[in-house]
């Protein structure tokens, strides 16, 4: 089990990590999700021993390994650019980690064969890695990282260098391989789709801190704050301010919830209104929010239409099951159960 405790790290004199703590349990796949510059790669490098934290500790099965040299940790790491050794063949690249831990030659040969078979690349054993396509390089890099049977596997944006189609294809394969390996995995990405598909648990990093730590579904349903909702693109975010007695005021008017809100009066909030929860042209007591709007754009997106509407100057995105013409006046509503308020 990996425990990360209160890690601080400055970069070029500016704080990058401001006290990060989390755990990775046996066989668990954890995704570090954040925008570029959020320090997620640095966090990974600190766990691998490629960088030293300014303060804080890393424990592996209770042992403090913060100052242990990289090569004694027994962790696997896959780089975004794969870093396959260009002066070695595919087989030699996979064998490298096995040689370093001093496995006997025949055992190495057998393990390399097995690795190559796992990625269906037996025929590539003696190829130069510089001759491989992006997808092949990615497979070899993963095989190389897994070959020495590491205690923990870390992947730094392993699909970042590939184009979209290949990405979707390899994501499925990656998911299968990682689950089959039954190893604890830390996966760094800025792509929420990858994170949702792969992870058991998500860690959202923002501004040097863990903003939310939960299973993907929970993160999706109950984002911890406005940044999470905005980063994941969950829907319309409308700035608001809390008032006493379950009320708040916003651009789209004053709203009264049936229960008191857990905020100080005057605190800055946002309302999250999801496009897919909007109900068109119905009215009644059951709706917390009802708005009159003019359709400005309508795009067919397959399962529905995506509408861009203007409600008294506030632009909103709405999902509609049927076509609506541009310029049409519509009413849109959200029931109280679908209106979320988040702190900023």
């Amino acid at each position, binding site marked *: 089990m990996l425990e990360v405790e209160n890690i601080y790290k400055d970069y070029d004199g500016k704080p990058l990590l401001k006290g990060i703590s989390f755990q990775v349990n046996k066989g668990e796949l954890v995704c570090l999700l954040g925008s570029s510059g959020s320090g997620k790669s640095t966090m990974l490098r600190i766990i*691998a*021993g*490629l960088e030293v934290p300014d303060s804080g500790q890393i424990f592996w099965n209770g042992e403090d390994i913060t100052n242990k*040299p*990289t*090569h004694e940790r*027994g*962790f*696997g*790491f896959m*780089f975004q*650019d794969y*870093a*396959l*050794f*260009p*002066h070695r063949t595919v087989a030699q690249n996979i064998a*490298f*980690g096995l040689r*370093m*831990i001093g496995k006997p030659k025949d055992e190495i040969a057998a393990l390399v064969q097995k690795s190559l078979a796992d990625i269906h690349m037996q025929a590539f054993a003696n190829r130069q*890695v*510089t001759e491989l396509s992006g997808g092949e390089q990615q497979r070899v890099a993963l095989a*190389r*990282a897994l070959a*020495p049977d590491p205690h923990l596997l870390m992947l730094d944006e392993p699909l970042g260098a590939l184009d979209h189609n290949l990405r979707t294809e390899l994501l499925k394969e990656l998911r299968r391989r990682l689950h089959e390996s039954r190893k604890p995995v830390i996966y760094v990405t800025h792509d929420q789709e990858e994170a949702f598909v792969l992870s058991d648990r998500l860690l959202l990093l923002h501004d040097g801190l863990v903003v939310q730590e939960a299973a993907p579904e929970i993160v999706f349903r109950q984002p911890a704050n406005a940044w999470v909702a905005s980063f994941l693109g969950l829907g319309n975010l409308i700035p608001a301010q809390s008032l006493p007695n379950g009320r708040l005021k916003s651009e789209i008017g004053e709203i009264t919830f049936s229960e008191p809100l857990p905020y100080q009066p005057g605190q800055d909030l946002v309302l999250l209104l999801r496009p897919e929860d909007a109900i068109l042209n119905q009215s009644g007591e059951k709706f917390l929010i009802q708005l009159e709007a003019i359709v400005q754009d309508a795009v067919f997106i397959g399962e529905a239409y995506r509408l861009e509407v203007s409600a008294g100057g506030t632009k909103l995105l709405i999902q509609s099951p049927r076509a609506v013409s541009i310029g049409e006046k519509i009413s849109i509503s959200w029931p109280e159960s679908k209106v979320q308020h988040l702190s900023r």
Partner: protein
Amino acid sequence: MNLKRSKSLTWLLWLIPLAFLLVFFYQPLLAIFRQVFSERFSQGWQFFSWAQITKPLGFTLWQASLSTFFTLLIGLPAAYLFARFDFPGRKTLRSISLLPFILPTVVVATAFNSLIGPKGWLNLILMNLFNLNNPPLNLLNSMPAIILAHVFFNTSIIIRMVGNSLSRLNPHYDEAARVLNASPWQAFREVSLPLLLPSILGASLLVFLFNFTSFGVVLMLGGPQFATLEVEIYNQAMNRFNLPMAGLLSIIQLVFTLLITTIQNRLNKPRFGKAALSSERKTLKKPTTKWQKLFVVFMVIILIILFVSPILSLVSRSLVTFEAARGERGNVETGFTLRYYQELFKNTSGSIFYANPLAAIRNSLVYSLLTMLIATTMGLLSAYALNNSNKANRWLEPLFMLPLGASPVILGLGFLISFNHPPWTSGPYPILIPIAHSLIALPFVVRTILPALQSIPNSLREAAGVMGAKPFRVFMEVDLPILLRAIIVSLTFSFTISLGEFGASSFLANARTPTIPVTIFRYLSQPGALNYGQALAMSTLLLITSALGSLLIEKIRLPGEELF
């Protein structure tokens, strides 16, 4: 102009530089061969003994190997220092370390003379400290002096070439190795070293080649008992007037040079694709551990001693009279003086044999200006010829590339044999010297202009042509503005090369038409404090001009262009 005629104009582009090379490079080379083999037919192989060849050849190989070894000893850690560590003064120290490459050999020889020679600072300080009458150290005319000067010259090559690969080496390779359970030492041995090895080997061979063909340094710092092939060629031709012997040594020298260049070219080919050496990365770090700090401090001190002390010593010694005991008649004079510089510009034609310095400065300037024009014109034409993707190109390209390895001494010898008669030697400024200098500068000019030319997409010219520009207009409006930087660099380069050129000039500049480096050499081989001082003063002026030239080149040159 119809299309056919414009095609024949392209041929003209070929013809001019080709004729220039045939007449001034291949013809003299042939003359050397003819000299040697006609001698062989009239005398058999009796005109020399094997020892006359094996001794200088053996010494050349030996000193080149030793010099290369010591250059690597300092150059590799220095390359690592500049590629990995950030420390105060890094940029300045790096610029200073790269300076020697452009310094004329006479300047370097004089600088080391002013440091370790009998009248140099080291001896003066020791004499003053211990009240001695004679210089206690005799470091001049020794192997260490030669090696020291070679290390001074060539460390910059290692720093540039190996440092470049080091800073472009993807740091993830080393990290990937360590994550795959390799210790730092294993990671270096198994991954970083093999990836850097081609550039280390390539740089070493280039350094070896430069040491192998070293002339001025060995002649001036080595003294009579040390003769490399080139020095022996000079001795045989200029002191013993044995041209066949000089020719034979030249042929041997040429064979070895070609051999080394061929191997070097093979090694220079990129081997691991773009992956291994990508664009420059931010790999600079402040030294953090105790060992790193110690390394940085140690290397900075070494580099300052190696690079700064000879130059400072030259400049300061040229401004100081410090005549101990048996100097000149009268009292011992010590202190600051501008006398050496003033003497340079006095038109005293005291000695018949050693021409006055003013004439040398005037001659050198005229030669440099002529070289500038000839080398850049020929370079431009050659670059255009080489840039054309003709069938004939593959045929003719080797003819153009061969002179790139030409040794100034062999060129001087060839010129001496072929052109030592009017009209080549007549007039106040015999055209022979600038032509020789142009041939030496030509490779640098071609290597500067050709990449710039290749960077111009042909569609630009076609677009201009479609819009109605005639070929000459196209050249003026499209090519010239893009090539301008490269042309200015070439002009500066050929000017500074000509100004400091010593090898060929030592054959061709006679007492009537001396150049600055030849005059410095003559001053230095004469006794007396004034001669010594004037050699220092002239070298200092040459040093300043060369440094300004290289500064200008560094400023204008596009990043990423390599000159060797």
